[in-house]
């Protein structure tokens, strides 16, 4: 007898997703009835409240540990932490809508962003190939539209590039999943752990193509080519969103794959190419930063390298590794979103403040913004005593103890290059001979608030380097 799927399914597990997705519908409905002068704020308020609701509900399941949907969705520690990261960065991203493109209706953007968030949240707990793909596509579909929503040609270019390249990568991913299914006869990740599958060539090829798909989403070299163009063209809040949410969701999938879906003896051989490209990304991403004249592009390259560090932390499959990866991911989230908030604050109605020129001589015009930006850049570069420094030290230590000293060496080399790139921006901001520019007068209290919150949290993380301790059992 086939059990009734509706009673088998554990709907509690996906309530946060429903809250977030439902909020998107309410945003759209509310936009129809709210007056024109208020609809921006209504949309943002409902979106943020929905995310907070989803985040709070997800938080209550932190201690829980069980499989929902027949093992397709695993709830508890790790998934919840990642969901919180996703929700928080979505909130910060929506807050940035307040600073750019005044006069546009944004209900559509907010709704799409919420649905994408729901997709990423699904990825955070996904434990079989179906849910992984479902989450990934839900995330990506929203983003294809979002990238094209700004009123400029580069935005549409960005959307098209993202659509085509991402579809290609999804093709590899899906093909890999099909091969994995062929090798094991099951879609669950747990089925992949049986030692017998490791002798099947299909398993290897499938795993490899699966990893290609993930590497694309994480924009690891050489699958990073899309990210600078797409980041540059997409509207600022969308770029901020992509720089953390996509990464967090994909990292969750990768971590679960790496920790829980590979027979122990095959783990190293299967994952080593992924760590190699992570190591290359640390160098290439930081090198790429050197020649940039657009802040969003610069942060895209910076993100390539930063994600390389986080992936490297998972090398060796240690308990520490996943905890430090989470620590660095959270630190990266705040440093990065803080930097985006400042870009938003330098925007005018017509133009986003992402060109490097708007940072030239910033210290004279907006000393506080320049100081805070300096703080974020130093943190991203890993200057002591910031959370970025601490996170890098932790990753270094786990790399060395897990037997990947070459990753540690690449991390140090990458950091050295990045110092130069970040300092170029800092020097530019404190250039005394800059020509005075017209001040963009931004009335964006939310962007100021998110900037301040990011500063505070980066500082707090430095002194309270708390890493969730009961994460590992729940990866599996």
């Amino acid at each position, binding site marked *: 007898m086939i059990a009734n799927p509706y009673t088998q399914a554990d709907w509690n597990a996906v309530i946060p997703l429903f809250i977030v997705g439902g909020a998107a519908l309410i945003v759209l409905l509310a936009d129809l009835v709210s007056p024109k002068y208020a609809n921006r704020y209504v949309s943002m308020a409902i979106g943020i409240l929905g995310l907070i609701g989803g985040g709070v509900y997800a938080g209550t399941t932190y201690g829980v540990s069980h499989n929902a949907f027949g093992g397709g969705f695993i709830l508890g520690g790790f998934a919840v932490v990642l969901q919180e990261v996703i929700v928080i960065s979505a909130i910060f991203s929506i807050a940035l809508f307040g600073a750019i493109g005044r006069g546009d209706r944004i209900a559509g953007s907010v709704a799409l962003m919420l649905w994408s968030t729901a997709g990423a949240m699904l990825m955070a707990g996904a434990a079989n190939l179906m849910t992984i793909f479902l989450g990934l596509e839900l995330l990506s579909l929203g983003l294809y539209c979002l990238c094209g929503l700004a009123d400029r040609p580069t935005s549409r270019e960005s959307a*098209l*590039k993202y659509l*085509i*390249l991402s579809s*290609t*990568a999804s093709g*590899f991913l899906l093909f890999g999943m099909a091969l994995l299914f062929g090798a094991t006869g099951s879609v669950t990740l747990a089925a992949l752990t049986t030692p017998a599958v*490791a*002798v*099947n*060539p*299909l*398993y*290897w*090829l499938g*795993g*490899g*193509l699966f*990893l*290609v798909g993930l*590497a*694309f989403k994480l924009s690891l070299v*050489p*699958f990073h*080519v*899309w990210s*600078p*163009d797409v980041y540059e063209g997409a509207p600022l809040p969308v770029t901020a969103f992509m720089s953390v949410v996509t990464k967090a969701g994909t990292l969750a999938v990768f971590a679960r794959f790496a920790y829980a879906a590979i027979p122990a003896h095959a783990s190293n*051989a*299967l994952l080593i*190419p992924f760590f190699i*490209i992570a190591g290359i990304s640390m160098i*290439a991403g930081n*090198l*790429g930063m*050197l*020649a940039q004249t657009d802040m969003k592009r610069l942060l895209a390259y910076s993100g390539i390298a930063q994600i390389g560090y986080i992936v490297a932390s998972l090398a060796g499959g240690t308990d520490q590794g996943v905890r430090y990866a989470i620590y660095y991911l959270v630190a990266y989230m705040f440093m990065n979103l803080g930097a985006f908030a400042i870009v938003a604050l330098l925007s005018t109605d017509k133009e986003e403040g992402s060109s490097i020129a708007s940072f030239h001589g910033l210290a004279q015009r907006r000393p506080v913004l320049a100081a805070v930006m300096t703080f974020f850049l130093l943190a991203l570069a890993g200057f002591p005593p910031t959370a970025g420094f*601490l996170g890098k030290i932790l990753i270094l230590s786990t790399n060395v103890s897990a037997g990947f000293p070459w990753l540690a060496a690449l991390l140090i080399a990458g950091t050295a290059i990045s110092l130069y790139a970040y300092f170029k921006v800092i020097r530019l901001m404190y250039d005394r001979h800059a020509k005075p520019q017209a001040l963009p007068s931004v009335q964006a209290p939310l962007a100021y608030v998110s900037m301040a919150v990011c500063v505070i949290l980066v500082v707090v993380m430095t*002194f*309270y*380097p708390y890493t969730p301790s009961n994460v590992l059992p729940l990866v599996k």
Partner: protein
Amino acid sequence: MLFVIWLVPLLGAILCWAFGPQLKRAAGVLGSAAIAVSFIATVASWGAATQNGGTHQFLFSWLRGFDFGLLFDPLALIWVLIITGVGFLIHLYSVGYMWNDNAVARFFAYLNFFVFAMLTLVLSDNFAGLLVGWGLVGLASYFLIGFWFFKPSAVAAARKAFVINVVGDVGIMFAIFMMFSRIGTVTYAGVFANPHALDPWLFWICVFLFIGAAAKSAQLPLHTWLPDAMEGPTPVSALIHAATMVTAGVYLVARCAPLWSASHDAQTLVGTVGALTALAGAVLGIAQWDIKRILAYSTMSQIGYMIMGVGVAAYTAGVAHFFTHAFFKACLFLGSGIIIHALSDEQDIRLMGGMRKRLPVAFWAMGFAVFAISGCPPFAGFFSKDQVIYGALEHGYVWMWAVGLITAGITSYYMFRLFIVTFFGTYRGELKPEAVGIAEESSSAAQAAGSSVIAHEHSEPHGHENGHAPGWIMAVPVAILGLFSLVAGWIMAGQNSPWARFFASSFPREALPPATVTEGVTSGIAIAMFLIGLGVAYMRYGTREALANAPARLKRESETLPAVLVNLYYFNEILDWLFVRPAQALGQFFGRWMDPHFVDGVVREIVMTNRFLGTLMRSFQTGLLRAYALIVVFGAMCFAVYYALEGAMR
């Protein structure tokens, strides 16, 4: 309560900083009030420190092995009392001293910040927190030495102090690394529970800790920054470079008593350095004419005593000398500040004289302090110095005992030289500088680096246009400190003194064989040394005939002083030859040869490579979709080939 003690000075610093322009002179009141609150809170929480071995306040947990917290025990209590108590008096005095300075709010912000940093140092319950405080006091000292940043000499002195102190910070950092990698914790409780767990690195950990202590406390050979640090305002010299910060090294060794008690070699090393510094500082003090530099060398010498005391495991004695020294040395500095103030920034004692009638408060207070530092019973310095000297003997270091006694005699001599030349006779300020032997262009490099010459050119910026602060503001603190210079030692008299009982359970105790000479005999010799020093000073400067011919005599002395002393044993020159010249030569080598031919080449290579790589990366980043797709597919193919091969080989 602990947080009040610790954080109110920080609050004061922030307020003085933030509202400086509005506060102006009121910043002094605010700053002093913050320290007063901290001091009252300290006294009020006396019991918390003395009962049950003190109070421990957990703050937060950083990485594993790094738990930050506050520890308030008898040792910390004594330091906090001095920092806030003497600190308050010096703050009060500064209100008057800085009355006409434009940057008075900045001054009090720094001063309060220093007190906060120093409290962090002594209240921390672990080495990492100690290092944070250690670094912060160095920073505060840097700010305050260079407070008059328009004086090039002040900036140079600040930089020198900072650099030498960083040497010490690095020493402590090494010690922390070694501790952490050996036993995985850096809390005092964890490290002191079993010092021998640190073997075989215990001795080296002590050495590195002591490098930090020596740099901060101006011990040989890292003392050269202290005389130059006198470029700062005089209250700064009193607070930081006499009473508190420079004694941080004493605190560190006393705090780490369990480590030192476990390593006899380390004890000998520290005791030796302390004894030699005590002697060297005293001898250097003989040949100086600048009143603040004399006091600086005497500070170095007295800290040598303290370091010798804690080094030879006579911890109670070393700390006792810190306690009394804080009073009489602060008193001496503040008194000299009154003189300097009254004489419009004259610091050369040859141009003083006859101050007894003019500045009676300074005369009486400094008189008490001079008797105290010279070791005259019943003044404070007698009791504590006696304990240190006897402690060295008790622990088997006879030569240190002898050195201590000889130094006591020299100290007595140069302090009374200062006292008589400054206060007795007639005022010589109207004479030409040459008449008392001040060379037009100072022959010694040290003198040039020092303050007197430059101080003439850049008169200290508190002009006298706006009148003076009420006289009592500066007089009262000096008087109180003078009084304490008399009475502070009385609690230390005798075998079972309140002082000894106070520290009964703080330090490790060793059973000692009876010393060859009793304490009474030691005291007798010390008093004899005091009298000899006093007598020689009187014969040379104090007789009716000497006072009458003072200018001529001083001139003769200036001309005949042994060059070796005037030039500070050529220490600056030796350091110059040892470190500066080789460093410069190395710099020349790199600058003339290495850089253009080798480093530049490499840099050019790197830049070219970077540019090449950048161009390479950009050549991929064409913006063309088909190119991107090609790259992605190419990457995927590489992956596919690897995995196909890997899978096929299974």
